[in-house]
């Protein structure tokens, strides 16, 4: 998928147009700032108080990145264990699914009791929200091996370790990365839920304050900051994917 200059041009123009229409509407209809602030007002808020937003963005980014990395580690580990041990699969897979079905927002207050109001509870929540797709995709990737390849491994007396390291693990990488992309966006949600429920730092906390004080432009700056953080982590995952799977760009090129 190549991105041309026209593509970038179209996207930029549409964003500018949306902002312009938004600005015009708030001015024409005299919409009060606490209901819908104009883009210019939001911009002024961001520029004048940027140290505040930078600080809280850093907190939230820290929570989501640590939670995301832990989710990746836990997810990959669980997947390997599930694939290789029938007993453990029977023991933990159903419980993982049940845990996934329980709404994480509902677990958040409990986590505050267990892990306190600090960063740990937010990191744990980000981890909880984002690890499930990683487990499921990783399991699929480790198992989806052509039968002939497994035959080849047997003929070559590869043993379990070589079969894992030379065939199953690299085969699972595309599955892993597509789940990491999903997980990276989920981890933002986890961190913000944690900040909503309790604590006094992070963009989620800023949004709560902004709401109680009806400072809607502050809400908007926090929202934009959140999406920038999500984008950033997503971009980092894509970067890692390119580095780890240099062969992948040839896959779509040939039939």
């Amino acid at each position, binding site marked *: 998928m190549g991105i041309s200059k026209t593509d970038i041009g179209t996207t930029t123009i549409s964003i500018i147009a949306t902002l312009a229409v938004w600005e015009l509407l708030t001015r024409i209809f005299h919409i009060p700032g606490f209901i819908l602030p104009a883009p210019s007002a939001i911009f002024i808020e961001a520029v004048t108080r940027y140290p505040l937003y930078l600080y809280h963005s850093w907190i939230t980014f820290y929570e989501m990145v640590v939670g995301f990395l832990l989710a990746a580690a836990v997810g990959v580990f669980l997947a390997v264990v599930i694939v290789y041990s029938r007993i453990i699969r029977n023991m933990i897979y159903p419980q993982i699914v049940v845990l996934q079905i329980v709404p994480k927002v509902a677990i958040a207050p409990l986590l505050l009791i267990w892990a306190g109001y600090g960063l740990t509870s937010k990191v744990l929540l980000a981890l909880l929200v984002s690890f499930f797709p990683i487990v499921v995709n990783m399991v699929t990737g480790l198992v989806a091996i052509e039968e002939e*390849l497994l035959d080849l491994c047997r003929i*070559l007396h590869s043993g379990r370790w070589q079969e894992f390291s030379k065939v199953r693990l690299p085969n699972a*990488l595309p599955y892993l990365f597509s789940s990491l992309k999903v997980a990276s966006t989920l981890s933002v949600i986890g961190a913000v839920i944690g900040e909503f429920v309790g604590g006094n730092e992070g963009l989620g906390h800023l949004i709560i304050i902004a709401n109680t004080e009806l400072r809607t432009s502050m809400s908007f700056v926090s929202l934009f900051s959140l999406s920038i953080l999500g984008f950033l982590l997503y971009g980092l995952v894509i970067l890692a994917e390119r580095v780890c799977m240099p062969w992948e760009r040839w896959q779509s090129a040939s039939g």
Partner: protein
Amino acid sequence: METSAPGEERHRGTIEVRSLSKVYPSQDGPVQALSEVSFAVADAEFVTIVGHSGCGKSTLLRIIAGLLLPSSGSVTVRGRGVSGPLSDVGMVFQRPVLLKWRTIFDNVMLPIEMLHLPRQENRERALDLLKLAGLVDFRHHYPAQLSGGMQQRAAICRALIHDPSLLLMDEPFGALDLMTREEMNFELLRIWSQRRKTTLLVTHSISEAVFLADRVIVMTPRPGMIADIIDVKLPRPRMPETKLDPRFTECVRMIGRKIGLLYI
């Protein structure tokens, strides 16, 4: 890899299959895939197995490779009974099944790594094989950058890199288009004439079976049995003109009759 005592040297590359049967359990009762199959393959001989799909050709090949156990009967390779996967075998499947994350060269080297053979001396072997298969300029490419025929040639190199005494091929050109397939037949014979491996190749194309082989094993389906074993008395090297030789057409016609293609 198995090492053979000097006295066993005359068995090198020899396959002996004795009254082999294979029964698969299924929901509608047991299915007899192979029944009383017996034959022998001499050293450096090229034997093809031809028959309808479902005549147990692939099952037979998998049993010889030690990937599947027979229900009764026995297989010996170089005088030793086969009871588990044989590393002395090079195997080529219908699909190339190359590792898409490895370059062509690293794919060819896979058996060396897995069998813990010395890497340095086998690098040269790998390059020689790739040269032989016309792939040496593509050794740093990924499989997805190569055509299906080229990928299958790389798979043949991978099957030969650890110098096995047997080459087993399960419909290796079945997934290729007809023109590539003919080209691959020549390529295979060219490689085979350089590395004289005892070769057993399964196909459902009669003309391919005759063109490649010293002998053709003709199988009938359900249960898979040997209908006949036919000596192909065509000179080597085989050329495109070989297919115009009356002996070639006669052989193809005869096998067609055995298999039950009455219109030939």
